[in-house]
């Protein structure tokens, strides 16, 4: 390990000498009720090894049966990415030994993917403002099954190396996955990190719109791998690539690209050579560390899966599925911008923050577009940034955001109190209503209580009171402030003003 001595070249400097060659692989866990090749449930978070059967445990004699719903989802993803859909394709066995893989081969697809040759146009926010549309070409989208999960107990790293023992959970084994592989993405070097983030963000929007996956990066139902190499500027020489695996937020995708560009540049500057290896991304400091070395000796001995018949979706079915596709993302963005009366800048910020669906859902729940944007791009974006997570992964739903805005509109809380409601909901204290009542946040507009407070304020500030009686209405602010202070902000400021003026008229 040379991590300690490794020099990381600052991104801006690295791209003056090198061009990044980047490709992305995204794994999408489908939200089918049952697994890819058996009838086991797929619900997230069940007790370990309770959603298993002979097939997904790889018991002797067990055989797979293809989940037709998963094929349907694969085709819909393929169509939404403007791919061709294979008229005939097969599954293949990818053979390698690993304890979390019950059969010691993964049933996947090799040279006959269900979908191929597509693209996704992504809007990339530019630093100088505005956006640029980049076409990311899709090489293929293929079907496969997920592996189980290993939990390594003991040891420092949580990895298998150095662990005392390992626990295996096969609930995830056999859950249907779609692997989406881009071709090499050709963009100006300085855009590469933003393009990577925009692609994953907008691919997720698409997956969510298709309703084929929960697409939760924090739960691993959407996982991105970043493949990156550097080529010295204008040399045409291709570098060796690293594969940063399972990056688990949009933000991290961008950071991983940045970091790897700097790391590769550092190694190459020093005359070293990049190892062909997988890398782990570290959320805490945005760095990557070496995983498993890959080499040409990695031989998965693919061959067509003899236990499954070929998949041959009829053209009629494919066309029928095409009819079920949601509005293409770029058209949808244009439509929403018009409906919401957002400026280009508003829209750019919203898309860039990965908040488009969240704002749309909040609007659908009854909030004005401006208010929805205000919360998601303000208070909540700040929280997500603090927590180092994506907006979508915050523990609050668009419906809850709408409910909080509803409380404001009803005059039950003011903006300041609303921030405390957000805090409570994010802390898991319950629904907005529950937070308001348990924290006692409701604005006091009860004239009795307010009237008493106003009287006390007048008594304590006779000079100010006299000024108001003399017609200096602007002096009322001092009394209102005193009342608000006493009521710890939970008073309806408008009503307090009315009472002050009434009493001193």
């Amino acid at each position, binding site marked *: 390990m040379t991590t300690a001595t490794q020099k990381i070249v600052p991104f801006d400097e690295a791209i003056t000498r090198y061009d990044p060659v980047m490709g992305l692989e995204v794994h999408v866990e489908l939200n089918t009720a049952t697994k890819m090749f058996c009838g086991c449930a797929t619900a997230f978070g069940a007790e370990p090894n309770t959603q298993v059967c002979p097939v997904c445990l*790889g*018991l002797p004699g067990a055989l797979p*049966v293809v989940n037709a719903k998963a094929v349907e989802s694969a085709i819909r993803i393929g169509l939404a990415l403007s791919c061709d859909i294979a008229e005939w394709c097969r599954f293949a066995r990818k053979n390698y030994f690993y304890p979390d893989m*019950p059969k*010691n081969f993964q049933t996947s697809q090799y040279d006959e993917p269900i979908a191929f040759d597509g693209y996704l146009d992504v809007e990339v926010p530019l630093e100088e403002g505005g956006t640029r549309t980049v076409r990311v070409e899709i090489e293929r989208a293929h079907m496969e099954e997920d592996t189980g999960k290993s939990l390594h107990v003991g040891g420092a790293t949580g990895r*298998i190396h150095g662990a005392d023992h390992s626990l295996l959970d096969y609930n995830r084994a056999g859950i249907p996955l779609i692997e989406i592989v881009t071709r090499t993405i050709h963009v100006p070097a300085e855009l590469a990190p933003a393009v990577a983030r925009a692609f994953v963000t907008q691919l997720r929007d698409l997956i969510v719109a298709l309703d084929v996956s929960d697409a939760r990066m924090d739960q691993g139902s959407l996982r991105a791998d970043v493949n990156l190499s550097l080529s010295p500027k204008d040399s045409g020489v291709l570098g060796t690539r690293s594969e940063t695996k399972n990056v688990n937020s949009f933000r991290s995708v961008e950071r991983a690209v940045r970091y790897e560009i700097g790391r590769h540049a550092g190694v190459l500057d020093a005359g070293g050579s990049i190892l062909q290896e997988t890398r782990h991304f570290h959320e805490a400091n945005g760095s990557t560390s070496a995983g498993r070395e890959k080499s040409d000796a990695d031989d998965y001995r693919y*061959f067509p899966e003899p236990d499954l018949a070929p998949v041959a979706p009829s053209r009629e079915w494919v066309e029928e599925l095409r009819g079920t596709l949601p509005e293409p993302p770029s058209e949808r963005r244009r439509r929403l911008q018009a409906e919401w009366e957002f400026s280009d800048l508003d829209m750019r910020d919203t898309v860039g923050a990965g908040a488009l669906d969240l704002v749309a859902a909040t609007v659908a729940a009854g909030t004005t577009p401006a208010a929805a944007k205000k919360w998601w791009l303000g208070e909540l974006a700040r929280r997500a940034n603090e927590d180092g997570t994506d907006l979508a992964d915050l523990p609050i739903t668009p419906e809850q955001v709408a409910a909080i805005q509803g409380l404001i509109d009803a005059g039950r809380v003011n903006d300041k109190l609303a921030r405390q409601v957000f805090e409570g909901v994010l802390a898991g204290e319950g629904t907005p209503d529950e937070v308001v009542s348990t924290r006692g946040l409701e604005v006091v507009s009860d004239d009795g209580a307010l009237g008493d407070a106003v009287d006390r304020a007048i008594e304590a500030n006779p000079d100010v009171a006299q000024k108001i009686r003399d017609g200096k209405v602007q002096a009322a602010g001092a009394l209102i402030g005193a009342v608000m202070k006493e009521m710890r902000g939970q008073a309806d400021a408008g009503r307090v003003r009315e009472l002050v003026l009434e009493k001193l008229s």
Partner: protein
Amino acid sequence: MSDLTRLGAAELAEKLAGGEVTSVDVTRAHLERIGEVDSRLHAFLHVGEESAMATAADVDARRAAGEDVPTLAGVPVAVKDLINTTDQPTTAGSRMLEGWVPPYDATVVARLRAAGLPILGKTNLDEFAMGSSNEHSAYGPTRNPWDTDRIPGGSSGGSAAAVASHEAPLALGTDTGGSIRQPGAMTGVVGMKPTYGGVSRYGVVAMASSLDQVGPMARSVLDAALLHEVVAGHDPLDSTSIDAPVPDVVAAARRGDVSGLKIGIVRELGGEGFQPGVQAAFDGAVEQLAQAGAEVVEVACPSFRHGIAAYYLVMPSEVSSNLARFDAMRYGLRVSPEGVPDPSAEQVMSASRDAGFGDEVKRRIVLGTYALSSGYYDAYYGSAQKVRTLIARDFAAAFEQVDVLVSPTAPTTAWRLGEKSDDPLAMYLEDVCTIPANLAGVPGLSLPVGLADDTGLPVGVQFLAPALADDRVYNVAAALERLVAAPVLEEVR
């Protein structure tokens, strides 16, 4: 030997239906027979006395209550120990699965249970069905009841020996390259490999997925057809299972009429390399068919000569992948490497596979791993798949000229134990006649036609038909069965 063990399945079914005997009597008679002779044969790895008797008593009670039960209800059966049973261990003949009791029944076993057949026990086999002699069983070989110094064939040698020696009237075997038909020929019993996809493979420990098929073994063509009917038919748990009606094999086995039928002798499967006694018995059988009104012609299947080479690439390739799951993580043998204080999962996997698999299994895993390797795939696995296509074309062309094909089942009669142990290639050549049917997925049945005049041991003749025409081979075999009246074994010798 009890008279009840002399009877075939059809006769037993008739007596059971007529109330002349009870299943408890019939099952007990066979269990006693096993107790009497199996120490000399080692056809069984496990005898399931308790569950067999329970099934028998249940069937008797249902019959006594006037319930309508299936034809073979109460007729006992033996099951190859490659097929999962929840009430008896399933070892695949390997140390790797010693004592393993599956948590689920194979579909064919579920069908046996639904049809009320008491399962006598689990029969011996070459480890993971890899072999032609049963000498590769990790639990010691089965012996041929016609001559206990000789092999019973393989890999379904236990099932064959059990039926031949009257330990069981019926047995299930599996056939990947001849593993039902060749032991059938060696022990003088009928063995049928159905059309690929005709019988479910769910719950059958996989050897080579694209070749494996479960089938019946019995002492008569009709008995085999009756068992075939019980286990065959579409299974939604097996994606390669054919969703089509099962051909009426029982009616065909009762018919047995070859007049006007065109039968093709496969030119490539005979002559040089075939034991004279086998060739003579085969020629005699064909002569009988001609006399019974069949038109016999010779047909060429030139690609068949590449069958063994293709088979020994496709089969081990699939084996290498199918047997990867035996890694000591979830079930089966677990061995810690010696002298390694704190072994990793990988080291345990490696040590367990080294200890759990026998030489022949390892040989095939290595062969298959190599054949699938990048850079070799096209030359080996790819070419072998092309040969499969050519063989299928040969079959298609032949079946345009004739209704069924005929050949000897194996080039020789049963050899002595140990005779070919040091020469795997010689052993592989024993499958020359049976392999093409597996590579093309067509049905094949081996019928005993008598004893070779040079060795005095049973000889089998194999009939082959197009896919899904399983009834055709039953019809022809039933006709020849009446004409040749092959001797039945009187006593284990």
